[in-house]
């Protein structure tokens, strides 16, 4: 039995506006059924953060769904307008709090584009290594949370977090913090690798395919997973492109658009890797795409660790104090684990940006949540939301 929350008595409103549910008369019906409007969230057992969905149900089937967010709107953009460019870097960690390295890289890349800075070779390789490690731990946690929302009560999540802890140990020995790494700078990385880091990373990467095999043995052929995800939340190609969906969701719908291959930012054109594409666009495809992407990331990591050159990790000409990029605007984007993470900066030549905007992949991917959930059961809504892979820090900024 999978139920999202315990039944709530009448006098306890869970949403911010109005009562927790209300009965709507279905127009034209002469029968007994009415539509039920339920506010799922902002506090609910599925572990996706403070996100609310106003769902209108006909029995158990979803008729309408309106997502409501803003419960974690932390004014990142406004704070960045009053702070220097470098002091916004720790705030970018907290956008998608699973993937702080890729957030940092997106911001550093945008500012480097604006100011025309060059990044040394070793720093580029380091960035790729850290980004792919981030992708590994993000995807494995996502699969863990998805399966937990289906009712697997924590066990796959324990496996996922076990691997994640190994990767977080690597991040901690490098940058000082497990999650909020604040590691990239404009023109390279903050500091060089400690001794023994490459060997430790090699051990993690070598063990990872065996862990993935074990994980897949539990999950990919699992009847419950297949029954609950195949055919659920089908996303068509046209809708995905028009709605601006990016990342694994887009590729599960069959569109071959991976920024690592399209934009070829950094040094991704030196690595051999494939881009997995889905056929049906349903939740099972999204799950499998992430597993396959993890395998590709392991391949990229092996190549990058093998080819890591010596040299500086920060461009000697980059100034960190009093950094004033030239006036103008720029839009820089990378393939974050959740999708296309973009930063739009307007600079007037001062130390603080005039306009600082984060293009959040999770928010744009939520545009089609209603389309995916219409016609499905209430229990499927949680599964579909889990496969969209949202992080509220990014949706609300």
């Amino acid at each position, binding site marked *: 039995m999978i139920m999202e929350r315990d039944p709530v008595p009448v006098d306890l409103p869970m949403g*911010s506006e109005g009562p927790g549910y209300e009965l709507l008369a279905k127009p034209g019906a002469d029968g007994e059924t009415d539509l039920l409007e339920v506010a799922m969230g902002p506090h609910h057992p599925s*572990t996706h953060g403070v996100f609310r969905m106003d769902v209108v149900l006909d029995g158990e089937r979803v008729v309408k769904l309106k997502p409501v967010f803003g419960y974690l709107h932390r004014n990142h953009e406004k704070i960045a307008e009053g702070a220097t460019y470098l002091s916004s870097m720790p705030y970018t960690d907290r956008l998608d709090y699973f993937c702080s390295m890729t957030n940092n890289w997106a911001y550093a890349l945008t500012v480097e584009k604006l100011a025309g800075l060059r990044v040394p070779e070793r720093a580029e390789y380091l960035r790729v290594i850290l980004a792919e490690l981030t992708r590994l731990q993000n995807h494995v946690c996502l699969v863990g949370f998805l399966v937990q929302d289906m009712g697997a009560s924590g066990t796959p999540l324990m496996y996922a977090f076990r691997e994640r802890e190994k990767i977080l140990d690597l991040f901690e020995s490098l940058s000082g913090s497990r999650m909020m790494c604040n590691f990239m700078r404009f023109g390279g990385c903050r500091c060089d690798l400690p001794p023994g880091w490459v060997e430790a990373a090699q051990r993690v990467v070598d063990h990872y395919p065996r862990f993935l095999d074990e994980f897949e043995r539990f999950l990919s052929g699992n009847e419950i997973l297949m029954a609950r995800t195949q055919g659920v939340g089908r996303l068509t190609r046209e809708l995905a492109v028009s709605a601006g969906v990016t990342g694994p969701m887009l590729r599960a719908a069959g569109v071959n658009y991976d920024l690592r291959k399209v934009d070829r930012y950094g040094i991704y054109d030196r690595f051999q890797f494939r881009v997995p594409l889905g056929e049906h666009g349903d939740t099972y495809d999204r799950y499998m795409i992430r597993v396959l992407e993890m395998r590709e990331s392991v391949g990229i990591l092996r190549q990058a660790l093998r080819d890591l050159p010596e040299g500086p990790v920060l461009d000697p000409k980059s100034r960190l104090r009093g950094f004033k990029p030239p006036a103008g605007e720029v839009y820089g984007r990378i393939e974050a684990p959740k999708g296309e993470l973009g930063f739009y900066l307007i600079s007037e030549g001062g130390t603080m940006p005039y306009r600082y905007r984060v293009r959040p992949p999770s928010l744009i991917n939520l545009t089609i949540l209603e389309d995916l959930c219409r016609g499905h059961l209430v229990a499927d809504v949680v599964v579909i939301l889990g496969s969209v892979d949202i992080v509220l820090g990014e949706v609300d900024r």
Partner: protein
Amino acid sequence: MAIEEGLRSELSKQGVLTTTLQEIYNWGRRNSVWPMQFGLACCAIEMIATTMARHDLARFGAEVFRPSPRQADLIIVSGTVTKKMAPQVVRLYNQMAEPKYVIAMGACAISGGPFKQGYNVLKGIDRYIPVDVHIPGCPPRPEALIHAFMLLQRKIAGQPLTGANRPRHLDPEGAGEFPVPEFGEHDLVPPANRTGWRPPVVVR
């Protein structure tokens, strides 16, 4: 009133176990604190990591994280509380049954944290609900959360059953429902409400 330790150990050597009502009552309470599954932001991920296999919080008694506030004893406010979310947090706190405790985890829950200048950020959850343990950090390590949990257990162990310092659930005059803030046009109404509980002030 505590039993003298020397007397207690002498008696226990003879096979006689002595205790007081307060000790045994608080022993039962502190070793089975069930937190509510309430994560707001980044600190929530460290809270989840604390319950996972590496730093196992379940050995301290926090065996299950209940999603329903009616079944939980402890609310770990982990993450930034925004003004849009604040009424919901206070409502959830009101729905918990006494005895209930609050841990403010992370800099954001203590005072707004790095987002303190934000127009939508509530500068500390102790503006509306009483907080028992504050954990600094951004995010605090899982070991810090375990340390806070142990501090809470020590606090519960020290709570007397009678007298002026008795906990709220044994005090019929104690504060019951904490008032829920409303959404105003520019800010929450009221911006802070410390009538039920006041945080201790540090005078320099």
